[in-house]
């Protein structure tokens, strides 16, 4: 495993340049460039704030940053799962020419997604400063720790979906449907407390995508550490998915090219 990691490191220029190409391609095509992906989240937040803020009677100073962080998080996670799923399929021409560690291709996807996520988070941070002032600033480094954990979680999910998509042709379609459902089962546009008040909080507890969100959002919005159960849940899920991802790579790394 050490040799494998070193090989990935040796080829860092390769995957970094692929990430760079991905980002360039994405932004070259639109006049607003980087601004476009930000604008999307901001517009969505304005609409949601007006509609659901009124509906749920929520304070906009809390609700707007709340949604911004939630959307940024979901954007990252769904990119990892959905684009990760096609990452090996798209890499077929490389894989049939050069023997490089397969883990590089999901990494490419996750690094690109991380870039967008970072920018979206910065917007969310600015919005929080604007609406709430700097009172929770000290707790923000905790969010960065959460980011690292989420990165590993995202990469593990991307590896797992990428491999399953090679073995079963309908996985990426199923995942799309699944992620749409999961979006509503994750407290992105509604606060968890509203579900708990009505006794259906378990929906979120059994949702593996809700832990990392809380880990990232709570320090920014409330200036406190997340509950121990949240931290343990996020760490546990990350470790578990990483173990599965590593086992998958270890067992299938060489054979996967025969299935493409």
């Amino acid at each position, binding site marked *: 495993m050490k040799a494998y990691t070193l090989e990935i490191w*040796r*080829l860092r*220029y*390769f995957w970094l*340049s*692929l990430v760079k*190409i991905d980002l*360039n*391609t994405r932004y*070259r095509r639109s006049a607003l460039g980087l601004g476009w992906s930000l604008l999307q989240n901001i517009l969505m937040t304005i609409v949601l704030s007006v509609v659901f803020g009124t509906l749920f009677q929520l304070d906009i100073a809390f609700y707007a940053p709340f949604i911004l962080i939630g959307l940024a998080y979901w954007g990252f996670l769904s990119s990892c799962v959905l684009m990760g799923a096609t990452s090996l399929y798209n890499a077929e*021409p*490389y*894989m*049939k*020419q*050069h*023997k*490089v560690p397969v883990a590089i291709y999901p990494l490419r996807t996750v690094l690109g997604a991380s870039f967008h996520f970072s920018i979206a988070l910065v917007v969310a941070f600015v919005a929080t400063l604007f609406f709430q002032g700097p009172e929770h600033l000290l707790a923000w480094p905790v969010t960065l720790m959460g980011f690292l954990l989420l990165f590993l979680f995202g990469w593990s999910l991307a590896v797992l979906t990428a491999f*399953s998509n090679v*073995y*079963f*042709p*309908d*996985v990426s379609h*199923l995942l799309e449907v699944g992620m749409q459902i999961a979006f509503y089962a994750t407290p992105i546009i509604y606060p968890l407390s509203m579900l708990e008040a009505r006794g259906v909080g378990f929906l979120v507890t059994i949702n593996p995508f809700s832990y990392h969100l809380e880990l990232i959002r709570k320090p920014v919005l409330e200036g406190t550490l997340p509950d121990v159960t949240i931290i343990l849940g996020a760490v546990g899920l990350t470790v578990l998915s990483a173990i599965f991802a590593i086992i998958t790579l270890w067992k299938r790394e*060489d*054979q996967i*090219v*025969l*299935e493409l």
Partner: protein
Amino acid sequence: MTSLSLQKANLTFTVRKQGRLPLKEMVVSYLQGKHKYPKPIQVHALKGIDLELKEGDRLGILGHNGSGKSVLLRMLAGIYPPTAGKREAQGRIVSLFDIGLGFEMEATGWENITYRSYVMGMTPADVAEKREEIAEFTELKDALDLPIRCYSPGMLIRLAFAISTAVEPEILLVDEILSVGDIGFQKKAHERMLEMMDRAKIMVMVSHDLGAIQDVCNRAIWMNRGNIHAQGDCKTLIEQYSEAMKPAEPAPAPSEPEATSTEDSTAAAA
């Protein structure tokens, strides 16, 4: 010490006639208690190959289409793992096959030069050094600033060839790319190719151009139906092979007599 070897290497592909089975179908039919999936076909592409290559070896691989030449080359490159048996390699491998694939179509010619150099293990310092030389060899000039989706197939293959031949190989694996581009470029490419083969410590080439093999190789193997049918000195083997590939005459040597080889040999000679 550069070396490359296969010991009793086998490769079996699993081919499903109806394509892959969707996960949904599999789960549903499992729940219904049916387990009748279309049986996959096993293709035994390489059968117990033993091969030992040392420094100085220039191996030519002969055989008609579908005999396992390209698969063998990919296994030597480490891309296809042996499903049974062993492969050992010492030295930096550079492979020249499917070079037209694996481009980022939205990126410019320059960007593609950079990242394709990186995938072959170059560092930014190496790339800075080789970039201009690669660009010059392609003769594409200003077109290198364009996204390569605008390139013609000929331009693309020039780019691919220039990049792939810019590295210093210890082990060089070649699949039939001795002619690329227009006539002027072909000559240039041919020379560059020969130089590169010269520098490599071990070279393996698959080609239907028997003359080319005879020019650059000192050893040869003859593949038939996933087996090494015969091997030895390049000149002798090519004579035997050409003899066997002559039309009219029945294919003499294949150990398993079968109708297809006669058909194939006729087709190859036609």
